[in-house]
């Protein structure tokens, strides 16, 4: 058929195909125009912008981008700067604490709410409302609660427990834990909501089966249901991880990075380096921030690929 048409019009088959292709693209033109902003952002920001950050990390840029490449010098400087090393250490402790407590408390809250309690909606609303507030507000409120002279500590002491000590922000060795408490307060409701949705997605038959087998409820939740909601747990985990790497606002509002450099995190380091007109150095720090995200993305891609291969094999 095609060859007949092609002969009639004096066109080769290749030309015909090119023409069809052109028509196809032309038909898609409004779609391409409609998505121009998206194309600009995907390519301009998330490809070129990220590339720019990585490239600048190998230069000695100060305020403006410089094309003078200095190899890994910025990275060497970075890892010999005590504040950066401390920042990285802090984000590990903070991240591990935040993620661990959020998952644990989030699951506990979800399981408890799942017990046909009265006022379920009220509890859910209360557990989730802090998430509507910004990290700045969270930080300021908890900074107030942790104030050694006016906050919780003073209140409990005024009730007669004169030796009560609870002012984590005043001490460099405990300030991070204070930040974790504030961050859990702000975000654990989301973990709960996601895990609760996962719980409610479990087949009722599973519950009937475990009840017939006489397995205690708490063991069902731990050993039967939890492994079945891998998807919800992964979602919650990824959200927490991305949030932890980004941590910035809450540090600024709560401690400003102090006492000393006790609560500095990589994000504040990057922004401060840019402000200090040391862009090359800051971009080296920014590139390091990308690494945990990169590892996470690769893991997700790997597990998706493996799951897909298994599904195909089955």
């Amino acid at each position, binding site marked *: 058929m095609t060859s007949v048409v092609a002969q009639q019009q004096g066109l080769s088959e290749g030309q015909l195909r090119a023409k069809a292709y052109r028509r196809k*693209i032309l038909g*898609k033109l*409004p779609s391409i125009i*409609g*998505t121009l*902003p*998206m194309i600009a*952002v*995907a*390519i301009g*920001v*998330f490809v070129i912008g*990220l590339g*720019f950050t990585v490239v*600048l990390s190998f230069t000695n840029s100060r305020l403006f*981008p410089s094309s003078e490449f200095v190899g890994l010098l910025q990275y060497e400087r970075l890892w010999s700067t005590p504040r950066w090393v401390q920042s990285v250490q802090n984000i590990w402790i903070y991240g591990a604490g935040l993620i661990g407590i959020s998952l644990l408390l989030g699951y506990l*809250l979800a399981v*408890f709410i*799942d*017990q*046909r*309690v009265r006022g*379920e909606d009220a509890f859910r609303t*209360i*557990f*989730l409302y*802090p*998430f*509507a507030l*910004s*990290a*700045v*507000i969270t930080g300021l*409120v908890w900074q*107030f*609660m942790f104030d050694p002279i*006016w906050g919780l500590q*003073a*209140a409990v002491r005024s009730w007669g427990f004169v030796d009560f000590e609870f002012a984590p922000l005043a001490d460099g060795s405990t300030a991070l834990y204070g930040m974790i408490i504030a961050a859990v307060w702000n975000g654990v409701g989301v973990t709960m*909501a*996601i895990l*609760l*949705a*996962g*719980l*409610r*997605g*479990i087949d009722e038959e599973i519950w009937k089966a475990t*009840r017939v087998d006489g397995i205690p409820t708490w063991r069902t939740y731990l050993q039967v249901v939890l492994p079945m909601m891998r*998807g919800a747990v992964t979602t919650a985990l*990824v959200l927490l991880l*991305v949030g932890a790497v980004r941590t*910035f*606002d809450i540090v600024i509002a709560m401690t400003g990075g102090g006492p000393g450099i006790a609560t500095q995190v990589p*994000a504040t380091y990057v922004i401060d380096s*840019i402000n200090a007109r040391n*862009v090359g150095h800051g971009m080296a720090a*920014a590139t390091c921030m990308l690494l945990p995200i990169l590892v996470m*993305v690769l893991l*997700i891609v790997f597990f998706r690929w493996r799951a897909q291969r298994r599904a195909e094999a089955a």
Partner: protein
Amino acid sequence: MSNLAMAGKAAVEPSGPKPKGLTPARIGLYAFLIIAALFFLIPLWAMVITSMKSMTEFRAGNIFALPQQPTFEYWVKAWSTACTGRDCNGLAPGFFNSAKITLISVPISIVIAMVSGYALSFWKYPGSQLLFTILVFGAFVPFQVLVYPIIFGLSSVRLPWGGTLFGTLPGIVIVHTIFGMPILVLLFRNFFASLPVELFKAARVDGAGFWRIFLWIMLPMSVPITIVAVILQVTGIWNDFIFGLVFAGRENLPMTVQLNNIVRTSTGTVEYSTNMAATILTGAVPLIVYFVSGKWFVRGIAAGAVKG
């Protein structure tokens, strides 16, 4: 993906066993939930009563002592005369800046994401899938990593009336549009992809094109998902701190940045009454959105959760 659908209707039947009267276990259960609720409510409670106490009263009692003579004096002060550095205009300018930024950014970012999501579902072109993948991975990137490239990009655009885009209202709107895009495009793409293809095909057969189908068929159907997107964006942009701090410029500093400046400026004894009043005022808008929107807010979070 499936989490989105599930979290969206989180109100389905609880899966736990049926309660059998008030056993000790039940009492423990409620005790745990109530203690947890107190943990979430106490800061809000302390914040509200502190903002209504005079500083003399505040110094005399503890943070849980009820105000003897409740006053809104500090709310007025936080709103109109509290100082940030040299200026003493309170939070009001920040409120109007935040309102301005939010009102402009929300519709722009949503319209762009809506059209993109629609195109990605029904008008795929070579490379569109790749673009979408890039965008979704973009949702994982910490903002701080992209701050400098965007500063550089915005300050290389010269405006006809002098200056550059960096530190201007259009600049901050562009930034919010950029960073809202991954999640919003995902939200709309998943929504449009869930619509029956026949709907689209029928319109095509009738000769309708890209924009006509969008305006006459898709737009009216996407009201619910748009509400979710609006809630997501309004709270997200209102609560933003770092973009406002870096990109808005001195004229447009949003409320969160003003709030932080007011609290940080306090010299001598910290005037917690004013600080807490300012904190409440800044949190009021997202809190109202939260309590009014209820289940929609949860849906927005669930949509954010699809990132995984």
